[in-house]
Each structure stands twice: as C-alpha cells, then as structure tokens.
C-alpha cells in the first residue's frame, strides 16, 4: 500500500491529490534535491544513498549522456566532452566567459544569439541544456522517491545572479520538464532552513565556503522579506585550496618534489582531503603514502593543519569586511551567522568566523545540505501544503536595480534593487533638443552609474512625439516587473498619447522559438517512452482489477451473485486477461471499464453486506460517516 506522511491537523489531502514539491540546490560542484516529509526537510538520496550529485555532464558516443559520478570519473580522460562547473557559464555571453573560458578545456562555438555553445561528440550543447540534464536526474530521483509527478520546484541561485542568469536557470528547468515555483537566493534559502524568517527582524550573515567558491551575504529580514543588503566573495577560494596546501605540505615532508606525476598528485590530494575531514573531530591524523618505491608515514596535527590553512581562512575575511561596509552595518546589529558549504566544517573556520562577527555561528544543519533544505521548505509552502500560521511566504525581490540610459551614458534607476515584486514604477523624462520627434529608450540592469558597466536589457524607440522646444515634452517611462520577474517597459508622451512598449527578453537567454524547438525535440524522444508507460499502467491496472475481482468472487461469489451475473463477470475477466498482453493500451482500458461495469452491482452488494456486519452491535449515531 501507499506510504503516508504525517500532516498538520486538518490538512490531510484527498488520495491522489498530494501536491509534491521539492527544493533543488543547483550548485557549481554538486547539486541536491530535498523535500518535506511529515513536517521535516530531508535530502533525497539516490539508490546508493548518495545525497550529492556532482554537477558534471558527459556527452559521448559510447555512453550517451552521463550525469554525476559517472561523468566526473571520466573528466580526466575525456575533458572535451565532460562539462563541469557549467553554472559559471549560465546566462553569460561568449564575451563574458572568455576570461574564464581560457582555463576551460571545452571548445566554444560562438552562436548568433550570443549564448556560448560547447562542441561535444553528441553535437553542440548550451549551458542551459547541460544544466537541464542535471535537473532531469534530480527530477527522476525525486519522482521515484515521492511516488508521483512534481507539482513544482524551488531552485536556488546565487544572490548576485542577474536577470539573464536567472532566466537561463528557469529555461533549464523548463527544458527538464519542471515547473518552477520560484527562484530563491541561496543565502535566503540557508536562512529559511534555520527558520530565521520566523524569528526577529534584523541582520543575518550567510557565510558560504564551498569547494571552489566563497560567498558572503548580508541579509535583512523585514516584514517577512529577506533583502540582500550586500554580497561579496571570491570565486576562486574554497575547500579545494585547503586540500592543495596540505598536499604541498605532504610533498615537502615526504620529499616527493621531483617525483610528481599526475597520478601521484591525485592520490596526494585525495589523502589531503580525507586528512582535512578527519581533523574536524580528531586532534591529529596519521598519513601513509605508498606509491611505487616510495613509502612515507607521518602525522598531521590539527595545529600544523591550522597553520597551513590560516592564510586561506583569513582571506575570506576580506570580502566579509567589504560586505559589512557595503551594507553599512556594524557588528552589534548582526542577529545570526549561518554557515554554508562543506569547508565550514573545519573548526578553524568556525572559530575565525565566530571571532570576526562576534557571534556564535549556526552549524546545526549539515552545511552541504542547508541550501536545499531551505528551498524544500519554501517549495512546500508555495504548493500550499503548509498553510499554518508559522508558514510565512517569502517575497521575491529584484536582485539588481533596473533603470534607463540617459544622456551622456548615465543610468537613471527606476526600480531599485531589493524591491519586492510584482512592482510598477514610472518616471517622467523629456526631450533635449528643439523639435525632437523620437526618443531612444535603453533599459539596463545593474548597480553602476555608467550604462557601459551595466547589463543591457532592451532598446526601443518612441516615435511620434510632437515637435516642441527642448524640455517641453513630457514622456512617462513605466517599468513593470511581474511575479515571475519578467520586465516590461513602456513609454508614453503625455500630451499626444503616443505609446511604445517592449517586453524584455534577457539578451543571453533562449528565444521562445529555441525553447519550443528544444522541448519539441525532447518530446519526440519522449513519445515512445510515454506510449510504453501508458501501456504498462493499463496492464498493471488490469492485473490489479483481475486479482481483486477474483478474490471477491472466491469469497462472496456464491453468496451474493446469481449464476447469470457471475457468468457475465467471468466472461469480462477472460476477455481482459486474454487481451492484456497486447500493445493497445486503449483496448485494455476499454476492457477494464467493461469488467468494472459488470461487477459494480456485485461490489455494491458486498459493500452493503460488510456494512451490515460492521454495524452489528453499534448504535446508529456512532456511525454517521
């Protein structure tokens, strides 16, 4: 029978109407999926019990598309077709990624739309498609674990992601067949996982030290909205750097400097990583290196380890200071510090952070999982499974300011960042030349003052302005951001009423046609799957029905049925069982319906008879179901 979860009083759902939802942490190095069960947020592991899915996808002729550990294992031997850290490419143009791209082994193709594509053995793929493959694996895992289709998901993104990067993430989800309830900022998700939104209003710091990146965010909780006051970080600093310095120490200690080859280095880094992890709980760890003729044995104490990584940990404090300054807050305003990312397990990191912020950091939740757990809580609320007073809905805010380019290449901000959406704001502009009849409008996104430093979103022209002296025309420019975060801009000349408007499509996202084409592709392949699934479902239904009617006949057939009725039922059963191995699911469905129909009276009689049995010895008013 179906497995049930405990619900809040009065909120149990009708059978077949559970609203399944998950939260997804789509990370640079690994991704996770979590859900709420009986009121508790829980990570969904794969069939081997692994919670973390490496965010690596390999496209090869020999094995097709591989995701996760399988792909990661091939990264060294097949770097061109194995794509890791694709998150860094999301929503970026080729020009944006060129400085990173030089370090990446992939072959980029410059596409017309500006979105980079990567050449693989299976053809060109875009970062959006690569991300969609990762999401599909998590979707399948979730649907298997929850036993049904997902109603919606919440996906987390870094607080500093701009519109294009967010749109690319949405596109990836759409491509993976997921309905996105909301994109949630990663630091906000971490705060939600700890239930901070139910606590006091005030400032919260999220310190996120992952494998390869460091981010610190200052959040302000205000009337149920987490506003991002400031973010800072270092995109090339993380736990992997700690492993690197330990490995260097090992090389020095064991005198391996002139013996270094790729395989040995890999082994040393593995040993460094496990030593680092062991030192979280122990004060020293023994390390043995056995490699060809080399045999070395030594001890790494926590003290030495802390000396080695001290400089790295100190380096995280610089962005922390910058973020505090940007947010213009002082240390005593901070209500809580939340630790995120595997590297925050290192005691030195915890102590350093605690000392710096003068506040004991929150470490109760697994720092690798905390973002996904928070996303799951938000998803659960958004699909309406948890309407209790404690369930506060977080509002989305605009991640970056939206504005319009004015004369001289300056930006006039119309909707400031951190404004809760949906929102509409308008501002009046005027002409700057006598007799000017048209005006070019250029919508941009960003915090900088110069147009060139902001991201261009859209350009359009308002024609038909009556010729007037400079400064006499009144042009109202309205910015509107809907609940999905999509921006539309309109301009109207107030004296004549001429109008022009544009719906902003992020410059580096996919066009609707592209998305449609991709979805059509995936559907073409899916058609076969769907057909076989429909057939399978009908066959299972048929089997189930046959079994239960068989059992019912054996028990009550003689007692409740006339010979003619029984004959009809038996005939329908034969018909069904003879045809259920065929491949026409509609035919099987029809035969199931027939059997259901001829056995309805029988079922009703059995119900009556069992009700009478159940009623025996009870007063009627006890049973007013």
């Amino acid at each position, binding site marked *: *029978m179906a*497995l*049930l979860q405990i619900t809040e*009083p009065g909120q*149990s759902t009708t*059978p077949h109407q559970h609203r399944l939802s998950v939260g997804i942490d789509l990370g640079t190095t690994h991704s996770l999926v979590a859900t709420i069960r009986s009121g508790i947020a829980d990570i969904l592991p794969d069939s081997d019990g692994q919670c973390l899915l490496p965010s690596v996808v390999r496209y090869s002729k020999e094995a097709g598309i591989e995701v996760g550990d399988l792909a990661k294992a091939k990264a060294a031997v097949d770097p061109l077709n194995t794509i890791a850290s694709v998150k860094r490419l999301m929503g970026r143009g080729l020009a944006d990624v060129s400085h990173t791209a030089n370090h990446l082994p992939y072959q980029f193709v410059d596409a017309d739309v500006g979105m980079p594509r990567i050449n693989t053995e299976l053809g060109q793929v875009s970062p959006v498609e690569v991300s969609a493959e990762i999401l599909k694996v998590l979707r399948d895992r979730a649907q298997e674990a929850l036993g049904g289709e997902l109603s919606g998901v919440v996906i987390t993104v870094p607080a500093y992601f701009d519109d294009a990067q967010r749109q690319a993430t949405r596109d990836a989800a759409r491509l993976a067949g997921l309905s996105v309830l909301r994109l949630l900022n990663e630091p906000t998700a971490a705060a939600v996982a700890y239930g901070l939104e139910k606590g006091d209003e005030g400032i919260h710091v999220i310190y996120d030290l992952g494998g390869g990146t460091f981010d610190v965010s200052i959040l302000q909780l205000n009337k149920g909205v987490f506003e991002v006051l400031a973010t800072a970080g270092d995109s090339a600093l993380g736990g992997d750097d700690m492993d690197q310095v330990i490995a260097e120490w090992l090389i020095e200690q064991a005198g391996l400097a002139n013996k270094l080859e790729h395989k040995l280095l890999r082994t040393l880094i593995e040993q460094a990583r496990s030593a680092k992890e062991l030192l979280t709980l122990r004060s020293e760890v023994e390390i043995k290196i056995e490699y060809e003729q080399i045999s070395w044995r030594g001890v790494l104490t926590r003290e030495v380890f802390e000396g080695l990584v001290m400089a790295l940990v100190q380096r995280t404090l610089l962005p922390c200071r910058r973020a505090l300054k940007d947010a213009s807050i002082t240390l005593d305003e901070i209500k809580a510090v939340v630790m995120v990312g595997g590297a925050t397990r290192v005691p030195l990191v915890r102590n350093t952070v605690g000392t710096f912020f003068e506040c004991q950091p929150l470490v109760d939740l697994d720092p690798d999982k905390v973002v996904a757990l928070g996303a799951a809580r938000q998803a659960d609320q958004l699909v309406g499974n948890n309407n209790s007073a404690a369930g506060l809905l977080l509002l989305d805010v605009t991640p970056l300011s939206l504005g319009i380019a004015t004369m001289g290449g300056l930006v006039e901000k119309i909707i400031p960042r951190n404004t809760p959406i949906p929102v509409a704001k308008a501002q009046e502009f005027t002409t700057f030349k006598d007799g000017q009849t048209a005006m070019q409008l250029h919508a941009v996104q960003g915090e900088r003052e110069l147009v060139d430093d902001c991201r261009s979103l859209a350009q359009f022209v308002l024609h038909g302005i009556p010729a007037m002296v400079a400064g006499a025309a009144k042009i109202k420019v309205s910015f509107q951001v809907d609940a999905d975060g999509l921006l539309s801009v309109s301009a109207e000349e107030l004296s004549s009423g001429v109008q022009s408007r544009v719906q902003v499509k992020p410059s580096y996202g996919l066009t609707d046609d592209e998305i449609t084409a991709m979805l059509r592709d995936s559907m073409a392949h899916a058609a076969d799957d769907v057909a076989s699934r429909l057939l399978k479902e009908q066959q299972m239904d048929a089997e189930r029905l046959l079994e239960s009617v068989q059992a019912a006949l054996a028990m009550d057939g003689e007692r409740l049925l006339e010979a003619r009725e029984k004959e009809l039922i038996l005939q329908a059963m034969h018909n069904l069982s003879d045809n259920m191995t065929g491949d026409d699911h509609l035919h099987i469905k029809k035969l199931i319906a027939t059997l259901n129909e001829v056995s309805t009276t029988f079922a009703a009689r059995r*119900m009556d008879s069992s009700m009478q049995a159940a009623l025996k010895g*009870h007063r009627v008013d006890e049973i007013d179901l």
Partner: protein
Amino acid sequence: MAITMSMAAADRVKSFLEARGHGVGVRLAVKTTGCSGMAYVLEFVNEIETDDSVFENQGVKVIVDAKSLLYLDGTELDYGREGLNEGFKFNNPNVKDTCGCGESFSI
C-alpha cells in the same frame, strides 16, 4: 479495542514530534473519499478531543476518534521503505479491498 504501533513507527513519530516542537501525539483516522470508499488520515495532534480514544505505545500516544476506531480496530501503524520512498503504513485487518495505489480502501 486497540491500536498498536511498530518500534520503527514509534521512533519516527517521536522524532517528527520533537522536530515539530509541540503536539501530544499522532491521530489515525479514516475519511470517506477516494476510489475505494475510504482513506486514511495521519495527522499531528495538538489537543485531544472528548470522543477520542488514546492508545499509548512505546511512549507515543496514538489518538483515534470513536467513528474511525470502528474501521481501524486492530490496526498496527508501521514505518517502512519501498525503494527510495519511505513513510507510514497502516496494517489494518478490517480491510478487504484497496484501490490500486493503496491510498484508499473499503471494508
């Protein structure tokens, strides 16, 4: 009349209640719905009502209202895993038929 609970189920209920922070136990009930007539309800309980029966198993209170008890008498609440899915199961001796998905049943 009695309702029991397996060791595994009691452990899970205990930890879910602790995580929730309040509540006196777990309610088992049936409601009329679904494709086979009736469906189970499994909820946290904040307050015990007057017509409730309370069964204590391994330190955990199972609360059942008078109507539901007619259909649930002798039921054991169990907790189990099926593939990647995990959750509570009702082992109800009164059940004669369940629908395909097992979410609803008839007696």
